[in-house]
């Protein structure tokens, strides 16, 4: 272990490997955070389409498209989506996109599929009587949704959304398939340059663990704050 530590120290401190790691960490967080924001935006749209009563054919068509979207992104591995997106789709469209931005968009679109399902089930879990009562009081559909149903749904959704963020962070570890240097790739490069893997890989695991623990703590605090108005607790 002593020799392994010395090799790692040389790579990490003396030759400046920590800079790659810090850059990689920023990239990992970028992909996860912006990916989640994109996921929540698109996911909300999809969930809305899925939840509103289908009164006209346009909405029905839209709903089918959403089903296909969710089916594709949940039914194929993320690595495959990255490879198709970056090496097939973007060149076919003649677009030039930095690998990091391509990754952010693809992770966001993937996340949207999961977020939409979370939101849909969260909204549908709110008792139908809540909507009926709101409508009976004379609120229109969108106001009842925004002011009565969604605030309650958010409480259901939040823990799952936290899980989605956690899995997104962990899934960023495969972004190097399309040449993105995330924190995993940064440590792999350090390991690969001298074939001493013990410390880089353990440290990598520790970093992910710390990130996830911070998020878990954040979500827990947020949940506690939202529960403050609950009579049940």
């Amino acid at each position, binding site marked *: 272990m002593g020799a392994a530590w010395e090799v790692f120290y040389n790579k990490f401190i003396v030759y400046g490997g920590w800079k790659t790691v810090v850059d990689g960490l920023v990239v990992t967080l970028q992909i996860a955070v912006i990916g989640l924001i994109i996921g929540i935006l698109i996911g909300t749209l999809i969930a809305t389409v899925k939840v509103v009563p289908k009164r006209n054919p346009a909405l029905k068509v839209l709903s089918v498209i959403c089903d296909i979207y969710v089916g594709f992104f949940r039914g194929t591995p993320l690595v495959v989506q990255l490879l198709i997106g970056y*090496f097939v789709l973007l060149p076919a469209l003649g677009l030039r*996109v930095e690998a990091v931005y391509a990754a952010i968009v693809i992770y966001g679109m993937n996340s949207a599929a999961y977020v939409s399902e979370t939101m849909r089930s969260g909204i549908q879990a709110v008792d139908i009587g809540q909507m009926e009562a709101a409508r009976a009081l004379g609120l229109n559909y969108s106001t009842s949704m925004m002011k009565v149903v969604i605030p309650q749904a958010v409480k259901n959704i939040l823990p799952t959304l936290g899980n989605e963020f956690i899995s997104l962070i962990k899934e960023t570890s495969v972004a190097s398939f399309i040449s993105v240097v995330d924190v995993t790739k940064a440590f792999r490069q350090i390991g690969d340059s*001298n074939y001493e893997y013990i410390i880089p890989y353990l440290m990598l695991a520790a970093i992910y663990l710390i990130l996830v623990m911070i998020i878990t703590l954040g979500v827990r605090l947020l949940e506690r704050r939202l529960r403050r108005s609950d009579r049940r607790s």
Partner: protein
Amino acid sequence: MNKFSKIVALLMAVCFVVCLASCGGDAKVKVGVQSGTTGYSFMAGDADWGFDGFSNVEVASYDNAGLALKDVEAGNVKYVVIDADVAKSLVASNEGFKVIDIALTTESYGIAVDKNQPELLEKINGVLADKADDITAIIDSYANVDDNNSKDWAGTPIPAGTYDANKDQLVVATNAAFAPFEFVVGDGFAGIDMEIAKLVADELGMELVIMNMDFEAITGALGKNGVDVGIAGMTINAARKKVVNFTDSYFTDAYQVIIAKADDTTFDSCKTTEEVLDVLKGLKG
């Protein structure tokens, strides 16, 4: 709730600042390489390997050089740096590229052997010496760039074999995306290295098992999970020698070159390594 919307707003602001900060900075030339290769260390710089690197170059590493070339085609990366024979094979099977055939480095390939098996090293060195003519013939048989790529290759592939800890096997780790040295044909393998592996296994009376893995994983894989040797166009260098033994070199004419788009004229006037390196150092993104 107000406090929380503030926190959310703050978080969003932070991530946008991070985003903007990463967009800025001076433009660098993007060069694609294969992960873990000499080309990667040469471009990125690595004190252990003895390369300074290029401050004006941003290195993008891929699982194999073919994917890097794909990204040159898409316009995300300007050049690819890879071993010369692989470059020629790649350019032969992909239209619209050319090899700047001026050596950036000088290297020779050897077979990496598990450090705990010095007797195996001796035996393989013996085969390499005894069968030098056969090895030259193998290398020559792949010399024609038009048919040394996986697309048009018409020989009989070497089967991968099945690993069995109880048998006397020579377990070879390789990265079969490195034509003409190793590539996949159907469910088997072909290439200079694979034929040499077959020759060595036959001479030693061992059964050949080929394990296809990421290139950067090979050196670390030796001695673990039954892997005995690595044959994958591996340059003999000091950094790798710390963890594996190398046989005598079987291929001494290896060097890194640049692959550019066919219409790229940047290196047209270059004749020597120094001139290429000077142009490379002066490039802007």
